[in-house]
């Protein structure tokens, strides 16, 4: 039998790349000092090498790909280790580490490390990214607008990752998908921008004057609106 092109049900390449870019943006937005940038860059280098290994895996160059993958994983580990040691303060570590883990998990979901676990890993990765963003908010690491933008980037990473997984399941990695994926990413980004603007506008109105309880009630009202729209 001649060689057949099998349909590989893996997350699509373009969507995975966009999702990871959004994830990196989310981490980058909540960190500042050089002590935090260094681990992130090291990890990104490791993930890049792993991506090359994945891309070359199906081209009959198994040994090379395997050694690349091992090197990449080592570099990612080094990056996370640096994330523990490099930042000067505890709070900086706390806001950086979930992001570093989140990126690694997101990448594992999009490779995918294990078939059938793509969506779980993507969600877990995005949740870790969001944990980093929330931690940054708790320790007052980033400004309101950067926090919001990081949140939008997290949602973008989760949405694009999920879309890549679903496209991968339905049409496979080999199919041409970039047109609809770019459109989808653009729409989610525009929605995020709209939410960002509205949220900042609300904040600019007079957040100081509004008590925390009042703000919470506003949020509950928002939920009520969502529930109402659902029915």
């Amino acid at each position, binding site marked *: 039998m001649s060689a057949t092109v099998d349909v590989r*049900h893996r997350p*699509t390449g373009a969507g995975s790349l966009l999702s990871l870019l959004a994830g990196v943006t989310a981490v980058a937005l909540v960190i500042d000092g050089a002590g935090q940038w260094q681990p992130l860059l090291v990890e990104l280098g490791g993930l890049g090498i792993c991506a090359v290994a994945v891309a070359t895996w199906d081209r009959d160059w198994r040994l090379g790909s395997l050694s690349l993958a091992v090197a990449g994983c080592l570099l990612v580990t080094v990056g996370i280790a640096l994330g523990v040691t490099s930042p000067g303060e505890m709070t900086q570590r706390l806001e950086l580490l979930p992001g570093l883990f989140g990126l690694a998990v997101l990448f594992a979901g999009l490779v995918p490390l294990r078939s059938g676990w793509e969506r779980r890993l993507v969600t877990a990765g995005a949740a870790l990214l969001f944990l980093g963003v*929330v931690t940054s908010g708790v320790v007052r690491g980033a400004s309101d607008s950067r926090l*919001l933008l990081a949140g939008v980037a997290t949602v973008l990473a989760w949405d694009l990752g999920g879309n890549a997984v*679903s496209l991968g399941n339905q049409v496979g990695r080999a199919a041409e998908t970039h047109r609809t994926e770019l459109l989808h990413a653009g729409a989610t980004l525009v929605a*995020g921008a709209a*939410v960002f603007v509205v949220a900042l506008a609300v904040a600019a109105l007079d957040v100081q004057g509004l008590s925390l309880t009042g703000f919470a009630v506003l949020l509950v009202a928002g939920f009520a609106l969502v529930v109402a729209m659902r029915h």
Partner: protein
Amino acid sequence: MTDARPTGRWRGVVALSLFAGAVGLLAQRPSLLLLASLGVGYAVYPRLLPAPPDPTLGVERTVTDTDPADGEHVAVSLTVRNEGDRWLPDLRIVDGVPPLLPVVEGTPRRATALGPGEETTLEYAIEAKEGKHRFEATTVLARDLGGATERRTTLHEPTVVDCGVAVPTPAVRDLTRHRTGQRVTDDGGSGLEFHGMREYQAGDPMKRVDWRRLASGGELTTVEFREERAAAVVLCVDLGEQLATGGPVDSGASHAVARSVAAADRLAVALTAANHEVGLATLGPAVCGLPLGVGQAHLTRLRHLLDTHEAFGPATANGPSPPAEPGRDGREADGHTATASATAGGPTATVTDPAGGEPAVSDGGQAAAADGADRSRSLAELRERLDGTTQVALLSPLADDDVVDAVRRLEVAGHSVTVVSPDTTTEDTVGNRLVACERATRIQTLRRLGVPVVDWASGQHLGNALSRTMEQYQ
């Protein structure tokens, strides 16, 4: 066309809000409450998007060669056009490649966005395998911009790839009807080939009187020629029992049907060319029939039935094989298609019987019983339709003993049966070798009954196999 189905992919985003809101309240951080509004915004976002319109799509499929040789690569191009007046931001197209033909180049799938009037063309190549192969419906999933709702549509563009070569000799046994045709009989009468001489009887045509003999000896004799008559043949396709079992995709069984249908097509052409009457029948769960008839119009009708009737479709042979059946958004359960593509290379079944899907060896019981009921019912229907001297050309992989039984009953009822049996057995596993052995035994049994069995090996020229076997019965 189906209703819009929510994919639920934005549902989890509210959790972000709840988490950020809760932490914000506990840690007394207004900025986190601001972050929580993000989740609310994204939960509302998919609601604000217009639902995906019921897509109005035009589809056109062209293949470079509709009757390729075995193993030849056939380029397929599928064009899908948005004929509606709205944007389709997320369109996932999966072409219905015939289950038995492997895709060797490109991919029959694509996701794209189409504006009004825009079109997209998928190009890929499949490898032709012997038999008549039908393209299934193209599945299209349309999602809205945010992917929150999904519509599923199927587009039908019937295309048949017919792989194989023409057959010069029809499978006909003894003479039957008193209608002039090409079948040379052993009966004397009018014709071309000399048969014998006999005493003149009143009423014999003047031109057949042997005048020379009368002149020399004074005896009045009549020359007899071998009569040439037409036969009436019902082509009966054995569909196996797949509907009854509803088991997993069995490429062997559907391959047998594909090859049987192709053989039926070739035989019908050869029979019509020789002025025989041809009819069509099925043996198995799905019923399709065409009464006896002659001529090109009848042949066209018969071939059209073979090309389009659902009884011969791949759905009969292995149960419907839906492409990319989406379950919940994340876990689209289209492993089915993947299996079909992966095993499309040929009969690689290990547990099921590659020749006809009868699991009689291991767990026969119920399935075989249900099958038996189907078979005897369609056999009874067939016998009702046949009149005294009609012959039957049975196209069957001979995958079970019921077929042998059916042949025996037809023979007893006076119908000459010729069996054309596409061989789909393999030798790769012990089970498959056993299946092949059982099939060989069935062929022996039938031959001992005096039934010609054309054992048509995969890749062999059907015409050669046919003439080699039929020579022994002339």
